[in-house]
């Protein structure tokens, strides 16, 4: 029989190993994919996965339940991933890089999208370019973009996880999308 989240958390807090295992089982894919998309590296994603759940189990007794369990776990996972991301030498993208229509490859890129964008997903080269583009995003853009457009979280939940205002989340999301579009356009050239 399915138990409520509240009951699951109550049992896990009391040290019920089955309840703790269910929490890990329910959220491990979410945490792994967040780490993978933010860090672009399987080994580091595994580190984030382990560190997150070690921390979740350790901090469970202090979980105040003011947010949903998923939001709380997401916040821990994001913090773990961002700590690693900040340690990683990365190529910064200017936040003013917002030229929207210029760029030599833009037309070719849009034509390719118009041609058959979903079929292009099968194209390994495109996947690699998409990964490179996302990897080069500034941290604040990347985090919001991954959470909203890849993981499908609600904007309000992202704001809560990242402790940002809703307008700030929306602004970062829009800038992330435009930057990605421009980067993919450049690479297409």
């Amino acid at each position, binding site marked *: 029989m399915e138990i409520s989240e509240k009951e699951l958390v109550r049992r896990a807090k009391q040290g019920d*190993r*089955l309840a*703790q*295992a*269910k929490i*890990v*089982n329910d959220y*491990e*894919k979410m945490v*792994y*994919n967040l780490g*993978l998309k933010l860090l672009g590296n*399987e080994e580091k994603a*595994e580190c984030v*996965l*382990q560190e997150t*759940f*070690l921390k979740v*189990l350790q901090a469970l007794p202090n979980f105040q339940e003011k947010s949903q369990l998923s939001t709380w776990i997401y916040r821990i996972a994001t913090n773990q991933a961002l700590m690693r991301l900040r340690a990683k030498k990365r190529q910064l993208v200017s936040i003013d890089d917002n030229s*929207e*229509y210029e760029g030599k490859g*833009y037309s070719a*890129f*849009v034509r390719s*999208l*118009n041609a058959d*964008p*979903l079929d*292009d*997903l099968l194209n390994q080269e*495109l*996947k690699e370019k*998409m990964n490179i583009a*996302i990897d080069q995003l500034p941290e604040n853009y990347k985090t919001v*973009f991954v959470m909203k*457009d*890849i*993981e*499908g979280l609600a904007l309000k939940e992202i704001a809560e996880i990242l402790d940002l205002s*809703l*307008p700030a989340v*929306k602004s970062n*999301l*829009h800038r992330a*999308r*435009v930057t*990605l*579009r421009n980067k*993919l356009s450049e690479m297409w050239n």
Partner: protein
Amino acid sequence: MDCIETLKQICEELGEDINSPLCKEVEEHLRNCAKCCAHVDSIKKVVRLYQNVERPDVPDAVDVRLWKVLNLQKPTD
């Protein structure tokens, strides 16, 4: 591009109801501005590309190590 869907998406991002004055203005502008339509269209397509990125399962070896580190038994259901 489905204009109504696009407008809904824009308004959602703006935090506005689709019938709000701001969304009506956006709708009117989009109707007459090919440049903005192209911009919205290209952003929408980029988002669709990324939304179709696969979300892989945790690899078996990674999964085994996780449960070992946590000293927990993975549920079998």
